[in-house]
């Protein structure tokens, strides 16, 4: 069974989704989905272990060897991403039944779980595959289910947010498809590994240049890189809390994975960074993203929107690390991908607990919640400290490696800007802390109790992970550095 792990990673949630429809009862479906996501998480742990022991795993689907068939190719990078996605989705799912009972009509619960599993399977499929067209197929699965999940939000504005995301996301996916099609035309293959060996021959043609441009723009739409981020804040703000927690922690990470995969493994470093001034472009957009989005976050009154803008800013940090173009920079990006998933997973899930009790996440409604829901608000505070980059949290590790990478490259002005960006994070996190602890509760809000234990446990699992991986960095830093070294080793 162990040699089937790569495919099991994807088909366990994928086949669990249609099975849910046969189970019907929401509570049973939820338990089943919990088991399925837990199993998926277990598989990703085993996979990471196997990759550590025996190096890159290759799995030929249908028994046809690549490039004729489709292959799954799992190296350190894929394994790390698979672990992030499956762990967050498993933890978020625990809170599913409780959170949905307040946020969704009972007759929609079944569909919610099906779509959740499909979205998860789609993201895992994108990451696991070694075939460029297969990426597009699973991109469709994950995006389509994500649009529907966002539209399930209680607020009617969720529909509009989801529609906007649908348009932007579809343009992104179409661009990626056009890029893949043009690559196929020039090389006659869709397999990533094969593409990497055949592209250099034709890399001077205009067709390959255009294919690269389409793929980069398409992926950047998906990863909400400033100025293509406009769909993200509303989508995150109006989606059901669980969906926000899942998407904020995973979906932009998948897009960044694609960016890394296409630029490093397929087109190759020399093409992406030397033929084109991609690193300068990304550096500028990354820094702008950090500042514009952080400042925007400061002025938001809805905390979900506030943290959504902060997500755009955090994407900026990942892109800055990417644009350095060294192994240290890339591993800083990967470390931040891992750590940011933990921070935002914890924060948005805790906000879900606030929605469960209070029904709204406006700053005015949060006033005084520090006393009424101490554990939930403490979770948000620790998540916020982690966002800022305070020592003992994962955020500190991210910032540390990013700044070291920037200084190694002699980019000290950029390092300074990164520190300034963190100061902006202090301001917007402080606004939440101030409301929760230093303002009296609004008189028109009923006093509330602490969130139920079934909600607090998953929140605190993520919070503890935030602190644990801030102290013990063997897993995150080790795998990220191995992955970065692998990417730089493969490409000459």
């Amino acid at each position, binding site marked *: 069974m162990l040699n*089937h792990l790569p*495919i099991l990673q994807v*088909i366990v949630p*994928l*086949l669990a*989704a*249609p*099975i849910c*429809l*046969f189970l019907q009862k929401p509570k049973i479906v939820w338990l089943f989905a919990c088991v399925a996501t837990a199993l998926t998480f277990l598989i990703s742990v085993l996979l990471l272990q196997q990759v550590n022991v025996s190096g890159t795993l290759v*799995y030929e*689907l*249908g*028994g*046809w060897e690549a*490039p*004729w*068939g*489709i292959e799954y190719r799992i190296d350190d990078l894929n394994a790390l991403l698979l672990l992030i996605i499956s762990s967050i989705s498993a933890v978020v799912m625990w809170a599913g039944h409780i959170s949905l009972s307040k946020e969704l*009509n009972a*007759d*929609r619960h079944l*569909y*919610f779980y*099906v*779509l959740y599993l*499909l979205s998860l*399977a789609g993201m895992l*499929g994108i990451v696991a595959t070694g*075939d460029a*067209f*297969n990426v597009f*197929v*699973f991109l*469709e*699965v994950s995006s*389509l*289910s994500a*649009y*529907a999940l966002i*539209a*399930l939000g209680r607020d009617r504005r969720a529909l509009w947010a989801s529609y906007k995301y649908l348009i932007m996301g579809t343009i992104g996916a179409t661009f990626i498809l*056009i890029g893949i099609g*043009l690559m*196929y*035309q*020039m*090389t*006659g*293959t*869709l397999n990533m590994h094969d593409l990497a060996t*055949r592209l250099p021959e*034709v890399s001077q*043609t*205009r*067709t*390959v*240049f*255009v*294919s690269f441009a389409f793929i980069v723009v398409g992926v950047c739409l998906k990863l909400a890189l400033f100025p293509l981020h406009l769909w993200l804040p509303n989508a995150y703000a109006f989606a059901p809390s669980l969906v926000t927690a899942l998407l904020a922690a995973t979906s932009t990470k998948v897009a960044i994975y694609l960016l890394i995969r296409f630029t490093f493994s397929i087109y190759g470093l020399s093409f992406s960074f030397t033929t084109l001034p991609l690193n300068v472009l990304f550096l500028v957009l990354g820094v702008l993203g950090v500042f514009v989005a952080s400042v925007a976050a400061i002025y938001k009154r809805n905390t979900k929107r506030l943290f959504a803008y902060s997500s755009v800013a955090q994407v900026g940090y990942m892109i800055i690390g990417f644009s350095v173009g060294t192994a240290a920079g890339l591993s800083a990006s990967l470390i931040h991908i891992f750590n940011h998933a933990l921070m935002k997973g914890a924060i948005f899930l805790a906000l879900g607990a606030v929605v469960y009790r209070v029904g709204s996440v406006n700053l005015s409604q949060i006033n005084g919640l520090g006393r009424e829901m101490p554990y939930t608000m403490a979770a948000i505070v620790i998540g916020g400290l982690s966002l800022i980059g305070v020592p003992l949290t994962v955020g500190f590790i991210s910032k540390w490696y990013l700044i070291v990478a920037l200084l190694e490259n002699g980019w000290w002005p950029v390092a300074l800007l990164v520190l300034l960006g963190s100061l902006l994070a202090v301001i917007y996190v402080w606004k939440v802390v101030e409301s929760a602890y230093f303002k009296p509760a609004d008189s028109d809000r009923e006093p509330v109790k602490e969130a139920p234990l079934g909600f607090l446990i998953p929140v605190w699992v993520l919070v503890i992970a935030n602190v644990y991986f801030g102290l013990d960095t063997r897993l995150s830093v080790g795998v990220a550095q191995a992955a970065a070294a692998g990417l730089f080793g493969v490409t000459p």
Partner: protein
Amino acid sequence: MVGVVVAIVWMKDLFSVVMLLGIYGLLTASFFVAMDAVDVAFTEASVGAGISTLLLLVAVAKTKRKEHPVRHKPYIALLVVIVTGALLIYGTFDMPRFGVADAPGHTHVAQRYIQDSYEEIGIPNIVTSVLASYRGFDTFGEVVVIFTAGIAVLALLSVVGGVSGVRRQSFYEQHSMYEQHKVLRIVSKILIPFILMFALYVQFHGEYSPGGGFQAGVIFAAGLILFAMLFGLSTAQRFIKIAWLQLMAALGVLIYGAVGVVSFLNGGSFLDYSVLLENPVAGQHVGIILIELGVGLTVASVITLIFFTFANRKEQYQIVDSTGE
């Protein structure tokens, strides 16, 4: 084709726009035939010109026929479109010329598909071999995409509680061709069995001629939708229940997945049909028939499902309107 596209953009009457889109689909299909891509043409004809036109018509019937006047001028969008178009044209300059035999698309991977697929898989239609076996996992993914679409529509639009209880004339029976158009009804009554038969033929003959599960599913669904349109939604839903359709859609995905799981339990890898039977080629054949069945089942149920969910929605509103709630 250019003329049709320009007309689509200019037209304000959505009904004509939908009709023109149908024509556009048909023209695209003819292009594909001219390029010798019969399977693709078949899909485009049934999906682009057929079923999507139908679904759009239902959407127009449910909403309004006229486009809203647009106040702002979308210059930025125009700029994006122009840049994209220019980039695409720029990209074509270095492409291999159309139909050249030594283009990379023909010489690398495709070579083996053309030369060896008959020996390895044992069916004459190369397109089916590639879709169902060499790249079977992509097709599995596509089926899941369709399944996702069906579930997404249900999650967002399904009518709470169902229409049961109140026996009443449906929207279609009042407004559509139910009472008038006797000719249409009689002609379709004769045609529908043949449409369904043709769908089954396309389904099971996909290995030998153009066609397969996708097209068959679409044609089958078109037959059912035609019936529902002419004889009323409630008549159709008396024997085709949405609850059943959603289980059938799930079953289709599960059949496809189960074939994959069985093949790795038999010692191959996921979707390796060769290990299904003693003889690898026969195993491939059985595998392809089974997965095409799964594809057809999911596609037909999802499309019918989407149509029913769209159509039901208006009926629910009408009930609400008439009782004054």
